[in-house]
């Protein structure tokens, strides 16, 4: 089956100005996302993982133009949506939906579920008004809630139920791509599993595509087809799920995977404990951004930026950005912990 491109991100940059001095001039930039490119195919789930502040949410927001990207293009089904007038974005907002950690944080607490959903349908002009109520009740059933709950208010729901309402709101406009930004992170595991299963069922049923943003590698392994690992605004590795977990190549990915506690007391662990903290994205390290914490860093790493590339040691759809992945994999480099 040929894969069909749905969204293609190219050279995306998002710099936030830092104002300073008494004139309030821009004195510097937070390079939150710094030149990243990737493609999402129809019907798949691509995840972005990485530690706090690496640029995951900024990427999601830039795709939707919730903030205007500094540079780069976002091509959705053939149209570069960064180049169209802002007014025309509305058309695309219907196809591109986002679910946040707590969708109700951004919703008027005095609105009932029904009015939240019908507002979304009204803005996107889906269905004539007299058919919306039936659709709302159907949507609530789809996400595992009861039709009579349509007239309830946000505070009457638990966290897991609120997340279901967020999903219903996203679904109400028949989107093609849903960006899930830490959508299950705040939920307890028993409820999280309910919502993850729901997302999978909806994908099967409606052919949805997901861009899944999460810092939880367990959730990501469960839900993804492909995974993007970010560090300080850059993509350091991109691969299908199995390659990433079974054959990670970038030293950061390896450290990240080895740092996660395993829920098995018999697991044999060889943990790579990274030194220090993540550097600031205001003045990111020159060369490879990971060099300040990388156990293999050399002088070349401190000056020359590695590009994403594949290699004989991995599948051709698997890419990582490290000068020395072949040498490290062959055991020719000595780590300096």
């Amino acid at each position, binding site marked *: 089956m040929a894969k069909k491109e749905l969204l293609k991100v190219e050279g995306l940059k998002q710099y936030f100005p830092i104002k300073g001095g008494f004139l309030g001039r821009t004195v510097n930039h937070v390079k939150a996302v710094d030149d990243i490119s990737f493609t999402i195919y129809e019907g798949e789930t691509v995840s972005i993982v990485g530690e706090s502040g690496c640029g995951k949410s900024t990427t999601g927001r830039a795709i939707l133009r919730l903030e205007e990207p500094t540079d780069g293009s976002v091509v959705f089904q053939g149209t570069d949506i960064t180049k169209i007038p802002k007014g025309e974005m509305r058309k695309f907002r219907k196809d591109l939906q986002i679910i946040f950690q707590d969708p109700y944080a951004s919703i008027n607490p005095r609105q009932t579920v029904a009015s939240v959903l019908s507002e979304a349908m009204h803005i996107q002009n889906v269905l004539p008004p007299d058919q919306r109520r039936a659709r709302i009740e159907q949507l609530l059933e789809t996400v595992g809630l009861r039709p009579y709950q349509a007239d309830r208010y946000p505070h009457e729901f638990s966290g897991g139920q609120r997340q279901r309402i967020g999903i219903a709101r996203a679904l109400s406009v028949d989107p093609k791509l849903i960006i899930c930004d830490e959508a299950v992170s705040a939920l*307890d595991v*028993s409820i999280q*599993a309910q919502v993850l299963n729901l997302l999978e069922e909806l994908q099967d049923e409606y052919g949805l595509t997901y861009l899944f943003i999460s810092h939880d590698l*367990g959730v990501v392994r469960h839900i993804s087809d492909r995974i993007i690992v970010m560090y300080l605004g850059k993509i350091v590795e991109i691969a299908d799920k199995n390659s990433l977990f079974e054959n990670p190549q970038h030293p950061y990915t390896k450290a990240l995977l080895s740092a996660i*506690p*395993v*829920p098995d007391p018999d697991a044999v662990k060889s943990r790579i404990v990274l030194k220090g*903290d993540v550097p600031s994205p205001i003045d990111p390290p020159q060369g490879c951004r990971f060099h300040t914490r990388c156990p293999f860093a050399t002088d070349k790493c401190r000056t020359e930026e590695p590009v994403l590339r594949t290699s004989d040691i991995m599948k051709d759809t698997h890419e990582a950005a490290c000068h020395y992945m072949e040498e490290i994999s062959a055991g020719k480099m000595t780590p300096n912990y």
Partner: protein
Amino acid sequence: MNEMESILVVNNLQTSFGTEAGEVRAVDGVSFTVPKGKTIGIVGESGSGKSITSLSILRLLASNGKTKGGEVLFKGKDLLKLSEKAMREIRGNQISMIFQEPMTSLNPVYTVGQQISETIKIHKKLGNKEAMSQSVEMLKLVGIPSPEKRVKQYPHELSGGMRQRVMIAMALACDPEILIADEPTTALDVTIQAQILELIKDLQNRLGMSVIMITHDLGVVAETCDYVAVMYAGQVVEYSDVRTLFKNPKHPYTLGLLNSLPRHDVDQEKLIPIKGMVPSPHEMPVGCRFAPRCPVATELCHKKQPDLLSTGGDNSEQIRCWMYSEEWDGESEVTLYGEKRTVKG
């Protein structure tokens, strides 16, 4: 467990809060033992009573909260019966605590050094200079680089991982016998979490203290704990050694947690969630609190609350579930990690 000395024994602890909607029994039948020099984990979902359990032990409840029953035996002495003055001696000296969000317990207007020395001065009765030099030592102990400089900095000048290290330094400043760590790494990134967990383990080995690790992360439990108490809706439902808990769990809730957990270390076909949700504290089921969500619940479960029963000869395994009693007449097959198994003890 008989051969092991226990430093803290919590017996049938009961803590309630007075609220507008009536009394909330946040902790209702919590029992566990902390063996000397070991780590015990308290695990459970949000609202299950983990934090209130630890605050009850230290008698640091909010003003509307009250511990109404049970005992907390620290080296044989019931902390619930001590005077407030005697309790102050214990807190920080013999039992200390670190909290989930370090910023709430660090004072923004004092330097890190001033805050650690303050603790040292109170508990060790030392002068300013000695206290400050011990603070530097403490920061070194918890792995903070250039501690002489760091003592002069304010909390906001430090990263999240660094602040958590300062909290640990403060908690350890007076060589406690028990460290209570309430979600010490939940707010941190995994690579920083790994550093902090390693640090706690290392300090425990060197100082020989006991640790109560409160967490909702089963990975953290598996990696750091020797014994585990699983809490559900204010009660301990299962207590055992960590290996038994993961390899041979007995309570249907523990099984449900393990079946719901998406894992990064193995491929799973499907997650099996626990249906429904945690009961509200105002509408606790009269029988087993897990009965509305339990896949094997019987009539008995809905009618009558099970006690926390020892299943081993000693107290090393305790289960609150009718399945393990003589009265049980329901099914005894459950699913774990995608496989059916018979659990009846």
